């Protein structure tokens, strides 16, 4: 393949994947809204409501406060979306990775950094907007990023370490992780440890996505939107899209770590296009289940936490739980 063809293909792939991420992310958000509404005894919005919302935001006026740092304020949403899309490139997405140009590239550590980008962009944009509410929200976002990073990193490192012990090469690569489910490698103790890590990761999801109970940076009733208070129109829509793409990237991470099985492997000798469709559908269903367990169910069942409680929950409770999970997996290798 010549370099030019590769670049053209890469561009087409990035655009296609962004579209896929946006559409799937918005659908997942719509499913979340409907499910939460049903759990609260409401009917809820139509499934495609997030699409209407984003479409409307794109048509609305994009205001900037007079005290804002214009360049940073304008660029933050673009960086957020770019970061989320880049993260998506390095995550196995069910069957789609067969066509992935970046197959085998990047690893869990890179993904950790890329997943931080949308949050960091929101922090920078929040500070740049000059609003006191956004400043408080930005400080809270930084604190919560620092907090959920501990259990998140602990989980990825443990699972990769487990593969390294099993003698797999390139254990940090998510593609390797997806090819070697931890459940297949570990014994009973390891299963318990992995289950603990799965629980921890499900509670990291609402933190990563800024949902209740970890939505202190936006906290509607306290900060009236916090970080995003000054954003409107196109800029706000870009943040929404970044959030949607990040949802898909996180789903991909969850699937790679804990549920990498392919639907198509149930049948042998499926032609490639059919297998890809099956795997993609399987991925969507798995993503929906992870989002339901980690986001919808949690946010329907609890109140918003204060920022100091968020730090405590992530460092103390979930951090300890993640360490206990690691310990179980380590002990498992001795037996």
């Amino acid at each position: 393949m010549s370099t030019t063809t590769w670049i053209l293909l890469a561009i087409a792939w990035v655009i296609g994947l962004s579209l896929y991420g946006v559409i799937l992310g918005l659908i997942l958000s719509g499913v979340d809204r409907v499910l939460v509404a049903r759990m609260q005894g409401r009917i809820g919005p139509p499934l495609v409501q997030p699409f209407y919302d984003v479409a409307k935001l794109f048509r609305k006026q994009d205001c900037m406060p007079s005290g804002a740092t214009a360049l940073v304020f304008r660029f933050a949403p673009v960086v957020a979306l770019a970061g989320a899309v880049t993260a998506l490139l390095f995550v196995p997405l069910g069957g789609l990775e067969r066509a992935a140009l970046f197959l085998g590239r990047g690893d869990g550590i890179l993904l950790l950094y890329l997943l931080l980008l949308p949050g960091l962009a929101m922090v920078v944009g929040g500070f740049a907007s000059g609003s006191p509410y956004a400043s408080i929200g930005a400080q809270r976002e930084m604190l919560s990023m620092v907090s959920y990073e501990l259990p998140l990193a602990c989980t990825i490192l443990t699972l990769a370490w487990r593969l390294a012990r099993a003698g797999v090469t390139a254990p940090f690569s998510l593609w390797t992780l997806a090819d070697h489910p931890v459940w297949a490698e570990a014994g009973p103790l390891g299963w318990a440890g992995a289950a603990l890590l799965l629980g921890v990761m499900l509670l990291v999801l609402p933190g990563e996505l800024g949902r209740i109970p970890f939505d202190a940076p936006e906290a509607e009733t306290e900060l009236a939107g916090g970080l995003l208070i000054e954003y409107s129109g196109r800029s706000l829509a870009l943040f929404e899209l970044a959030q949607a793409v990040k949802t898909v990237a996180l789903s991909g991470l969850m699937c790679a770590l804990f549920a990498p099985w392919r639907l198509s492997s149930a049948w042998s000798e499926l032609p490639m296009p059919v297998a890809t469709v099956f795997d993609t559908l399987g991925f969507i269903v798995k993503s929906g289940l992870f989002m339901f367990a980690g986001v919808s169910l949690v946010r329907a069942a609890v109140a918003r936490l204060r920022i100091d409680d968020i730090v405590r929950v992530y460092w103390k409770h979930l951090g300890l739980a993640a360490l206990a999970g690691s310990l179980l997996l380590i002990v498992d290798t001795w037996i």
Partner: protein
Amino acid sequence: MSEKEITFSTTIGPTHPAFKEPIQLSFELHGEEIVAADFVPGQAHRGVEWMGMRRNPVQILYLAERICGICGVTHAMSFARAVEQIAGIEVPRRAHYLRSIACEWERIHSHLLWAGVAAHELGFDSLFYVAWQAREKVLDLMEDFTGSRVHYSTIAIGGVRRDLDDRVRKAMDETLAFYESVFEQLRRAFLEDDTVRLRCVGTGVLTAKEALELCAVGPTARASGIPWDVRQDHPYAAYAEVPVKAVLPDAYTGETHGDVYDRIVVRVFEILQSVQLLHQLLDQLPEGPINACPKPVALLMRLKKATGEAVGMHEAPRGEVSHYVRLAAAEAPLSWKVKASSYSNYMSWVPMLVGEQVADIPIIAASIDPCISCTDRVLVRKGGGSGGASSSGQVLTKADLTRLSVAKTRRLQASAAARAEVVR
């Protein structure tokens, strides 16, 4: 680095998602911690008293009812009690009972509404829907009972406007059974939920001493351990025959902290108390007339001759409400002053908020169940003028307001255009 703490000031409101009505809170913050707090009321401009002093008492009754958006009995009851005292009208016994019945239903509806709002302030929307779905039952019942879901117009000077028939009586029994069945669910959801406890226990403390000094009333005072309740201290309507004992948080938790959690405890158990009171009221409901002066014209003739002053008190869901009325043998009263419960409770915000976190502002602000439209008044200055804004010097007429709002729109348009230039 200097040792001095660097603080910054910020305001919340007058329009902010934490407030359902306009009021402004201002803060000195050190990071997330509140160093000093203050509030600026007076954002809801209402000339209700001024309007009332140009109307006769029967008309004022309906105006009074509309002081509050949700308490359809509270202000009408206080006003009617004041006028009845001046004119020496003896309310029939059955009417007393029917008034108490309406009051207690209103308390259930108001506390459920508050519980929902509090849950929403905590970011716990599922609980908000639970509370408001339960509240629908009482609203439907009140529509059956009085003809309206919120502004009941059931209190009349001299009694009540509508009697209770067998069909509504049956509906009341069913609704009471419903609340008895859901009470346990509500209690567990609000008082035993971990996240609610995490956010509310020890938050926004008002000590008994502060509550006394700041003259807090209603559930706000009771949660701090002050056993005040107008129904208990100065029984009126049927409360002399169906006695009420002030609900205090230590009955449930064993001790009094005066925090947000205790205020939830008091309100949740007042729902149960109201259900029990309603059972007694309905069981003991006597027969007889429901209005001492059923003919409005005769009533008006009598009120026109009345002279004197009186204070009508009532224990609203939010606390004591009092109306001062002075009649001087004329069509309209000489004076009418409304003191809503939130007027007494606002000041307790300050000790509650200082030392807490920004995250606690919404729930602490909501914990006194503020009714801003009940409290805010327009001040009419006699002969003082009002800053040159009005042509007559005293009162802004409709024409003045139109002129002022057109001027403001022009001003906003000009500055928006200027801003748009900057953006480009």
